[in-house]
C-alpha cells in the first residue's frame, strides 16, 4: 500500500510541477474550495461534483483573460455531519481560501452553516436540498444554486395521487435530510388529500437490515413505499422489499438519482420513481457545452445528477472573484445581489436568503436500467405499469 501512497505522492508532485509550469506568466494565485462526499456510499455524486468544479477551475485557468491563477482545494465531508464540520472548519479557517462550493448531503450542509457564518466564509451549496440550509438562519455567507426539496415533494405527491394510489408507507433516514423529506412529502400529500400515509419509519443512515421495518410495513400493506434518503440504504430497502415479497411501488427522492442506485440493484431498480429539481443535464441551457468539456477531460467517473450545479456554483464563485477581487467580504457582498445571472443551469437569482429559485422539477422513472423522464417513459404512456398502477 505504501507503494500506492508513494505513487500518489509522485502523481501529486507532477501535478504541482505542471501547475507551476502553467502559472509561468505570473498571475496571483487564488485558492477556492470544494467540499463533497468523496468517500462512503454517495461518493460517486461527490466525485462527480468535484470533477465538475475542477472543470470550472481548469477552464478558467485556461482562459487568458482571467485575472488570477486559481487553485482548487478539495475536502471530503464523507456525507457525515461531524466530518463536514471538521473540514468546513479547516477550509473556513484557512484565510487563503476565498470561497467554496460545498456539500451534496443536506445532513452535512446543515451542520456546517454556523461554521461558515462564524468564520465569515462565503459558500455556494451545489447539491444539498434541505430548505433549512438557506432558510433556517439568514446567513449572508450561505447561498445555493440548486433548488430545495419542497418543490420536488410537491411534484412527487402530485404524481402519486394522479396515479391513483391510496395508501403510502414512508421510510426516511433520521438525518435532517430524511426528516425534511418526510415532513414536506407528508404535507404535500395531505394537501392533495387523495392518498393517506399508513405508517412512517425512521431508519439510521447506515442501517444494514430493514427486515424489521419492512415486516411491519408488509402488515400495513401499502400500495407505495416512499423513501426519503440516499442511494446506499435506498438500494438495501428496495432489494429487501423483494425478499419479503412486498409488491408496493418504490417512490424515491433526488437522493437516489444516481447511477450507483441502478448499478446497486440491477433489474430490481426497474419502475423506481424519483424526482429532482432542475432539468436533466443534457437539457440545461449549457448542458451540451458542459457535457462536451467534461468528457474532454476524461474524468474516470460521470458528473452525476448535480455535477452541472457544482460547475455553476464554482463558475459563479470564479466570476465574482474576477469582478471584486480575492476578498471574502467583497465576495459575500457581490453574491448578495445576484439577479438573472446566466449559467449553464439557466438564470440564477438569489433571494434574500441566498436561495436560487429553480421552478422546474424533473420526474424520473427507472426504465431498462436508466433514469428516464417520466413523461417520455413507457409508464406514462401506459405501455408498462408500475405495481398497483391504476
Amino acid at each position, binding site marked *: 500500500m505504501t507503494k500506492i*501512497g508513494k505513487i500518489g505522492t509522485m502523481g501529486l508532485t507532477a501535478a504541482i510541477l505542471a501547475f507551476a509550469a502553467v502559472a509561468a506568466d505570473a498571475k496571483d494565485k487564488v485558492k477556492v474550495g470544494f467540499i463533497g462526499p468523496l468517500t462512503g456510499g454517495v461518493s460517486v455524486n461527490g466525485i462527480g461534483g468535484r470533477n465538475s468544479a475542477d472543470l470550472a477551475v481548469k477552464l478558467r485557468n485556461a482562459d487568458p483573460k482571467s485575472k488570477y491563477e486559481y487553485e482548487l482545494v478539495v475536502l471530503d465531508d464523507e456525507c457525515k455531519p461531524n466530518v463536514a464540520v471538521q473540514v468546513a472548519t479547516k477550509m473556513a479557517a484557512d484565510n487563503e481560501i476565498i470561497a467554496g462550493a460545498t456539500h451534496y448531503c443536506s445532513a452535512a450542509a446543515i451542520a456546517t452553516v454556523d461554521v461558515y457564518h462564524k468564520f465569515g466564509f462565503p459558500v455556494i451549496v451545489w447539491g444539498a436540498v434541505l430548505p433549512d440550509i438557506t432558510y433556517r438562519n439568514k446567513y449572508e455567507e450561505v447561498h445555493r444554486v440548486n433548488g430545495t426539496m419542497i418543490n420536488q415533494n410537491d411534484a412527487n405527491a402530485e404524481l402519486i395521487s394522479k396515479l391513483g394510489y391510496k395508501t403510502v408507507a414512508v421510510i426516511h433516514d433520521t438525518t435532517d435530510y430524511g426528516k425534511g423529506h418526510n415532513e414536506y412529502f407528508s404535507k404535500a400529500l395531505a394537501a392533495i388529500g387523495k392518498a393517506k400515509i399508513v405508517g412512517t419509519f425512521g431508519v439510521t443512515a447506515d442501517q444494514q437490515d430493514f427486515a424489521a421495518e419492512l415486516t411491519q410495513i408488509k402488515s400495513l400493506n401499502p400500495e407505495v413505499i416512499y423513501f426519503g434518503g440516499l442511494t446506499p440504504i435506498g438500494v438495501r430497502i428496495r432489494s429487501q422489499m423483494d425478499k419479503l415479497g412486498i409488491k408496493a411501488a418504490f417512490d424515491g427522492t433526488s437522493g437516489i438519482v444516481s447511477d450507483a442506485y441502478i448499478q446497486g440493484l440491477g433489474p430490481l431498480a426497474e419502475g423506481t420513481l424519483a424526482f429532482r429539481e432542475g432539468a436533466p443535464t443534457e437539457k440545461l441551457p449549457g448542458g451540451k457545452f458542459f457535457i462536451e468539456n467534461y468528457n474532454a477531460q476524461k474524468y474516470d467517473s460521470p458528473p452525476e445528477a448535480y455535477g452541472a450545479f457544482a460547475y455553476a456554483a464554482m463558475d459563479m464563485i470564479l466570476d465574482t472573484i474576477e469582478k471584486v477581487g480575492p476578498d471574502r467580504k467583497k465576495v459575500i457582498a457581490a453574491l448578495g445581489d445576484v439577479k438573472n445571472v446566466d449559467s449553464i443551469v439557466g438564470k440564477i437569482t438569489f433571494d434574500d436568503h441566498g436561495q436560487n429559485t429553480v421552478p422546474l422539477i424533473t420526474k424520473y422513472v427507472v426504465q431498462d436500467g436508466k433514469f428516464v423522464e417520466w413523461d417520455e417513459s413507457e409508464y406514462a404512456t401506459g405501455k408498462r405499469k408500475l405495481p398497483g398502477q391504476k
Partner: protein
Amino acid sequence: MARKADKARAAFWPGLIALAAATGYLIALLAVEKQTFIISLLFGGIAVVVVAAWLGLFDDVSRAFSDHEDVLGGCVILAALAVAAFFHENHFALLLIITILLYSVATLGLNVQFGYAGVLNFAGASFFGIGAYTSAVLNSHTALPHLLVLLIGGLLAALIGSLLLLPVLRTRGHYAAVVTIAFALLFKTFIEVNDVLGGPQGMQVKGMNILGWSFNDNVKIGGISFSFYMNYFVVSLLLLIAAFILVRRLERSWIGLNLDALRLDETAASCFGLNLARWKITAFLIGNFLIGLAGAMFGMVGGFVGPNNYTFADSLILVSILLLGGIGNPWGLIIATIIVVVLPEKLQTIQEYRFLLYALMVIAVLLFRPQGLVPRPVRHYFPGWRP
C-alpha cells in the same frame, strides 16, 4: 532505563535539546502545506529518530526527564506556548494543537484505567461524548458557568460509567472488553436514534464564555491579533497540566503501586490486603472523569457534537494512542497523541489513502516495537530522589 542506578543526578541538557528539536519539528510539520515537503519532513523525522535511538541518545534524554522532570515539565509548557504563539493567527493549526491537548487529557484518563489498573475500556470515545453532549445541552439550556459545565461533564461521565461498574468488576480480560465495547455501540446508537439529543444530526454547542469573556471572538492585544482559538488553547493547556500532575502523582504513590499490583496479579495482590474492587472503581471513575472533562471542553471548542464523533472506532483510536505511546507512560502518551492527531490531518491530500497508511503504521509499531514508542520506566516515587 537507568541500568546501573548511578547515584549522581543525570545531565539536564539532553532533555532540553531533545525538547527544543521536537518543538521545532512540530512547528515545521504544522506550518508546511505542500505534501511533498510534509512527506520528506516525515521520513526525515523518522530517520533522525531511528539514528538517535541507534546511537542510544534517547537513554540520556529519558534519564534527564526522570531526574529533572519538574524543570523539564516547565520547559515543555513553555514549548507548547511557543508553538501556539507561532501560530497565533492560524485558526486551524491552533485547533489541531487544542485537539492534541484535549486528547492527551482523555488518554491520560484511559491510562489510569488500562495502563495502571488494567481495566479495559473500549468506550473511551463514548465517555468523551458524554462530556461533549453535557456541554452542548447545558450551554444552550442553562446559564451555568462554563467552567462548572466542564466539571459536570467529567462527573457525568464518571457517573454514567459507574453503571458499568458491576459487570466491569465481575469480568476479566476479553469479557471485560465486551462490556465496554457493547456500551460504546449502545451509546452511539442511542444518541443516534433519540431525537432529544439531535439524533444523527447532532447539536450545535455554544462557545465558552467566562465572566463575559466570549471565547469565540478573535482577540486583539496591542497591535497583534490572535485567533479566537487562543482562548481555548490556554484553558485546554491548563486542563492538561492539571491532569498530568494528577496522573503522575497517582502513579508515584502507594495508589499507583496498588493499581500496578492488581493489574499484574490479582490473586497475589488480594493476598496482601488489596481490596480489588475499591481500587478498580477508583481507577475507572478517575479515568472516566478525565475523559469526560476533556470531552466537555472539546465540545465547546468544536462547537458541534454528533453521534458519529463518538463511535467504537474512535474509542479504538484512543486505545491505540495508549499502545503507541507505551502503556503507562504519560510522556509517551502525549507524543503518540501528537502523531495520531497530526499525521492523518497532514496527509489529508492523499485523502483517500490516509486511513490505510495510518493503520499500516500502527501495525508496524505493534510488530517491531510492541512496548510502544516510549516504554514505561520503573517507578521512581520522586524524580531524582537518591537513597
